[in-house]
């Protein structure tokens, strides 16, 4: 046994350095697939449960290793990149330069669609990135198939459209119009008019829960379940009108940015916000969430962009210089900020997942008159969609999209049969609104049993002190008509302090009782054994 382990050690030492490096890489990947640490089995006393859990932990380790190996060897595509040599900086690279270097299929993704009549455009993509809905302020709604650049349907609703959002797939989309929000089908027919919400400013869809969230002009937050149409929650935020609303894809909480500089996070089952963060001294103009749920980017009108860590609710980084009207994170963690007619892409220059350092990666400035309304990265592609006042555009950002999609999660090459099956499975997996919480990994975990521990002596003393202080500091009502004598006042105060002390009586009593018993025992111990029964037991 020992010889074989020694042999293994020797072979490990003599591995070539490349192999050792790849081992380290594999380790980090395995960590990702393990999804946290293993359970501590030492504290278990039940042997059967311990062996069962130990064998399960082994299985998890094996599957994590296999998944890491699959990621290394079997995935069909690799991520895009932009590398400059020498003194050239990545942000000086223009879209025309990229077009020269890249193949024909990708260069088709760079375009500007000019529609000057219908106002600033808002965009939304489906989860697979295949379809896009563009909504112009003056009432133009267009559903486009991005892969074939085919216009599926366009309608003119003849009203202001403030926001558009897809529901669970491209068959349904919602538009926030002048008075109410409407849901349309793929062929442009109006399916539902959502009157309860009032004039909606922003619309977002929570995919796992099938909830359509919206914030209206008076600052009310509405959640509606689109499978049966019931309003799950309508919450009065109490913070006034806002049109900055984003959904955190990791845990499904909705974040609102307010004009006082606070960002509040909401869940449908409570009327009070989960978290309130004071992010900016002035109004918050935009919020964006990283797909892993740990990072949030906010921008305020005072021309600062702040990056927050949501696990500790701490600020990680501040970027000065521009007022970003719209923010968006890509699947790979690139942050896009749009101001005026200028788009700036920031990338995380530190490789580790614990520290983040966002710095300039790429820039793009559009024609002077184009005011950017919305930026959104297209899923699974190295493309960003820009909705602006003269239509919409799309530019290439290498390294922003996830190269390998999973057919069971989002398939850009879906057939209609697959789409229908997927819809049924999505409905079966629909989560109830109670599962929205800040830490979604708590679901399925056992609650730790809290054994009521007797507080220690020190703790009791401390509590007693606090109670006495509270009693001393209470203000007595000033009595009139001759009842306000100083002697009576001091008496009353003494009485209150005595009452506070009375709730901690056991200490003294216990001591005296145990002292008496000890004395009795000592006396009994001195007597010879035959006379012990005559010892006094007080």
């Amino acid at each position, binding site marked *: 046994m020992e010889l074989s382990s020694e042999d293994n050690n020797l072979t490990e030492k003599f591995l070539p350095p490349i192999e050792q490096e790849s081992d380290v890489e594999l380790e980090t990947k395995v960590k*990702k697939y393990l999804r946290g640490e293993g359970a501590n089995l030492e504290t278990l006393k039940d042997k059967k449960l311990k062996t069962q859990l130990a064998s399960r932990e082994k299985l998890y380790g094996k599957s994590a290793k296999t998944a890491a190996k699959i990621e290394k060897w079997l995935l069909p595509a690799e991520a895009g990149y932009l*590398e400059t040599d020498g003194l050239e900086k990545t942000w000086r690279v223009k879209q025309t330069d990229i077009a020269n270097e890249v193949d024909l299929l990708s260069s088709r993704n760079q375009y500007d669609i000019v529609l000057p009549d219908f106002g600033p455009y808002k965009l939304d993509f489906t989860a697979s990135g295949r379809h896009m809905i563009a909504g112009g302020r003056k009432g133009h709604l267009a559903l486009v198939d991005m892969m074939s650049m085919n216009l599926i349907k366009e309608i003119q609703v003849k009203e202001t459209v403030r926001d558009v959002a897809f529901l669970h797939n491209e068959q349904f989309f919602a538009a926030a119009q002048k008075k109410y929000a409407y849901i349309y089908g793929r062929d442009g027919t109006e399916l539902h008019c959502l009157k309860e919400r009032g004039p909606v400013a922003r619309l977002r869809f929570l995919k796992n829960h099938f909830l359509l969230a919206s914030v209206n002009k008076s600052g009310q937050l509405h959640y509606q379940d689109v499978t049966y149409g019931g309003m799950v929650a309508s919450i009065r935020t109490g913070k006034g009108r806002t049109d900055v609303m984003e959904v955190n894809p990791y*845990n499904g909480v909705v974040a609102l940015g307010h004009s006082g500089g606070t960002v509040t996070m909401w869940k449908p089952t409570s009327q009070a916000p989960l978290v309130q963060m004071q992010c900016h001294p002035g109004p918050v103009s935009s919020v964006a969430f990283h797909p892993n749920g740990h990072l949030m980017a906010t921008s305020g009108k005072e021309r600062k962009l702040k990056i927050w860590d949501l696990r500790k609710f701490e600020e990680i980084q501040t970027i000065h210089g521009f007022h970003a009207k719209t923010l968006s994170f890509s699947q790979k963690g690139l942050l896009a900020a749009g101001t005026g007619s200028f788009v700036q892409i920031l990338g995380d220059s530190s490789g580790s997942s614990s520290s983040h350092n966002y710095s300039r990666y790429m820039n793009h400035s559009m024609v002077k008159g184009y005011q950017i309304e919305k930026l959104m990265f297209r899923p699974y592609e*190295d493309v960003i969609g820009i909705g602006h006042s003269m239509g919409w555009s799309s530019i290439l950002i290498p390294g922003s999209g996830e190269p*390998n999609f999973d057919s069971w*999660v989002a*398939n850009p090459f879906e057939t209609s049969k697959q789409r229908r099956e997927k819809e049924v499975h999505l409905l079966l*997996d629909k989560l109830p609104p109670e*599962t929205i919480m800040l830490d*979604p990994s708590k679901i399925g975990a056992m609650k730790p049993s809290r054994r009521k521990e007797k507080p220690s002596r020190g703790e009791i003393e401390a509590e007693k002190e606090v109670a006495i202080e509270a009693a001393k500091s209470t203000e007595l009502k000033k009595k009139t008509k001759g009842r306000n004598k100083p002697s009576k006042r001091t008496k009353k105060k003494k009485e209150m302090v005595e009452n506070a002390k009375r709730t901690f009586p056991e200490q003294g009593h216990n001591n005296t009782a145990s002292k008496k018993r000890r004395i009795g025992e000592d006396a009994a111990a001195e007597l010879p054994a035959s006379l012990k029964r005559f010892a006094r037991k007080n």
Partner: protein
Amino acid sequence: MKIKTLSRSVDEYTRERSQDLQRVFHNFDPSLRPMEKAVEYKRALTAAKLEKIFARPFVGAMDGHRDGVSCMAKNPNYLKGIFSASMDGDIRLWDISSRRTVCQFPGHQGAVRGLTVSTDGNVLVSCGTDCTVRLWKVPRPTLEDSSVSSENFIEPAAEYVWKNAFWAVDHQFEGDLFATAGAQLEIWNHNRASPVQSFQWGTDSVISVRFNPGEPDILATSASDRSITIYDLRMSSAARRIIMMTKTNSIAWNPMEPMNLTAANEDGSCYSFDGRKMDEAKCVHKDHVSAVMDIDFSPTGREFVTGSYDRSVRIFPYNGGHSREIYHTKRMQRVFCVKYSCDATYVLSGSDDTNLRLWKAKASEQLGVILPREQKKHEYNEAVKNRYKHLPEVKRIVRHRHLPKPIYKALGIIRTVNDSKRRKEDRRRAHSAPGTIVTKPLRQRRIIKEVE
């Protein structure tokens, strides 16, 4: 300057012809799946509910006997057939798939107490209260048999009369001997009219006998003096013997771990023992309310089925203290014998109401040919349900079984009685010197002593 962007060509990601399979791509990255735990929990809940919707365990009843069914025997070579015998001497061979009698073996004058089949499947041995042991030749099933409801009557190949009534019989695995239980334990050969060997201990009758599947010379018996004895045929006396508080009605050896045996006891529990070390039970299986009449192991060795006097059939895991499943019907009266089918899919119960009932071993199982996709889905559902079965919502659904009122009430009474006993014991221990009151663990409590 090196630039590369993602570009996917449609041909690589879609199929060429409509006869091809659709292409599926996997990426197991957890960041693509937000809230995976919540989705998994939802799926576990749905799987538990679906399992309850599809749980229809009763397949059918085999009607024909005119008196209560007293014993059954299964032929290891022929999965479709089962032998059963009743209290009026009627022995039948049933075809399980059509649930009809294939042939009858008339001859016994009184109740038939034991039935067993030889390992090659050719000889059926039966014994009864009319002090006879009869050997029958089992007819080979032919192609025509399945459709014709034949009322064939088979003549016994041999008939041996002896001095006392018999209680049970069992055949040796891979051998020519069979053992009968009566006033003594007797070992017979097929060709001899009198036993070749006999064992006796005390004056009490032997109630049941079972040969070990792994060692052909070892057998376990239980007697009416509340003992369990293990004999070795090569020795002249008993190998091991323990005496318990109540008598054991039936014994079964684990076919996958032949040193372990499980005894069905009169006090409603089954005790699993390691045959080599009988002073302590390995596991106590408690859920029956009344005496356990019969026990049989699944060929996988992971489960066993028990039939009890309280009108129910329960399926226990081999190492678990409580039953996984309970089957009951208003029409099923006292269950006297149970058998687990040789393909581990069905459970048969013979009861006092003259019927043999066929049940599925896994209540929500889909019978018949299952597509691989369906199989995978069933396995996934099972796995995800097991992962979350400790959480309250899922546990409530998985654990839920409808019990007949008498059993439900009796379980409540037993629980109250045990609680009060335990409370009294705890108080006694708290008020007496530490160490004076010693509780024996349940595994040892019911064993009085080990003899020899």
